[in-house]
């Protein structure tokens, strides 16, 4: 018999699904913060998987730096989420003691690394959204959110500069690198639409001036992406199909495999410290 994941999660103390959209402002804020924190956590973890494996030492360190930036931002977002939730959890508990269906990251960031080019393409497509997102969050009516956005924005300004430059260099590089970059773009494209699809929670957060409506970030993203892809001699796919569900806790088959090594220590030795 197939185990009932929802029942198992309830027994384990989870909700069985990502927080439901309802009109409780605190619940909306908690969900919005989880979405931000989970995006940076899952992408940070994915990028950290390169540590010790990148093609050259310099890129290895650059990737590790970026992973650390993202995980540092996670501590801030999930720390605030835990505070807003007020249920006695902290950032670590949210990162290491939730199961896949409680995570609210978009599907793009949990995509496997693939080759170096695919990792960079995923990074670029995310950074091109992340930078204007943080910019908009600087104007949040919630001062705590605005403060985190200012700090993270400085790091992400460097991320987008770096990932855009490398996408251009590899796209407009050799036949081999061009082919790989175009292939990466084609396979990741279907995962970009989710960044701009809002749900009821997003709409209420936008209405309250706390977070921007996802749809409002599309123009800035399009401008960056079109400009960089043109310079990289890469062809923007025409499809508008968008895989979605990550924000609501419906993840791909890769999520569990990502969480297992990430959460192993805290799962096997709860509250272990060093």
């Amino acid at each position, binding site marked *: 018999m197939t185990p009932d994941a929802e029942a198992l999660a309830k027994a384990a103390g989870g909700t069985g699904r990502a927080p439901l959209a309802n009109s409780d402002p605190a619940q909306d804020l908690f969900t919005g913060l989880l979405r931000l924190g989970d995006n940076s956590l899952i992408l940070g973890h994915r990028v950290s998987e390169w540590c010790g494996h990148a093609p*050259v*030492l*310099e890129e290895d*360190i*650059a990737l590790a*730096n970026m992973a650390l930036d993202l995980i540092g931002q996670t501590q801030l977002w999930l720390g605030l989420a835990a505070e807003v939730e007020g249920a006695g959890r902290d950032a670590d508990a949210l990162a290491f003691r939730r199961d896949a269906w409680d995570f609210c990251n978009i599907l793009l960031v949990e995509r496997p690394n693939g080759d170096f080019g695919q990792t960079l393409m995923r990074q670029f497509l995310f950074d091109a959204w992340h930078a204007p997102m943080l910019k908009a969050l600087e104007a949040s009516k919630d001062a705590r959110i605005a403060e985190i956005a200012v700090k993270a924005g400085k790091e992400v300004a460097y991320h987008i500069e*770096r990932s855009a*430059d490398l996408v251009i*260099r590899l796209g407009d590089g050799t036949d081999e690198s061009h082919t790989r970059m175009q292939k990466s773009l084609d396979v990741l494209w279907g995962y970009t639409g989710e960044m701009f699809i809002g749900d009821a929670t997003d709409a209420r957060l936008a209405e309250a001036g706390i977070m921007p409506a996802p749809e409002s970030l599309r123009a800035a993203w399009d401008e960056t992406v079109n400009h960089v892809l043109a310079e990289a001699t890469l062809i923007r796919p025409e499809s508008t199909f968008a895989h979605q569900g990550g924000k609501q806790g419906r993840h791909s088959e890769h999520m569990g495999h990502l969480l297992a090594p990430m959460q192993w220590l805290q799962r096997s030795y709860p509250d272990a410290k060093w």
Partner: protein
Amino acid sequence: MSNEWPLWEVFIRGQHGLNHRHVGSLHAPDAELAIRHARDVYTRRNEGVSIWVVPSAEITASAPSDKGPLFEPSNAKVYRHPTFYDIPDEVGHM
């Protein structure tokens, strides 16, 4: 290996220091990426306020075997060191 990126020497001006100081080297395909790599490799602990990179191939160095002729003659010229002056006490520490 010919297909390796060329080597660059990295100089960083620290938070309080006046001069750029040589901190090490790295590989990069061009100057722009060399600066970026230097930022990632050598300024992770907030070391610098400015970075210079120079292609290692562009540096002309003295030969270690010339050490004797180049530097030893100055050893015998003590009069080049300002150690023959009496400094009045009022001047204090110099």
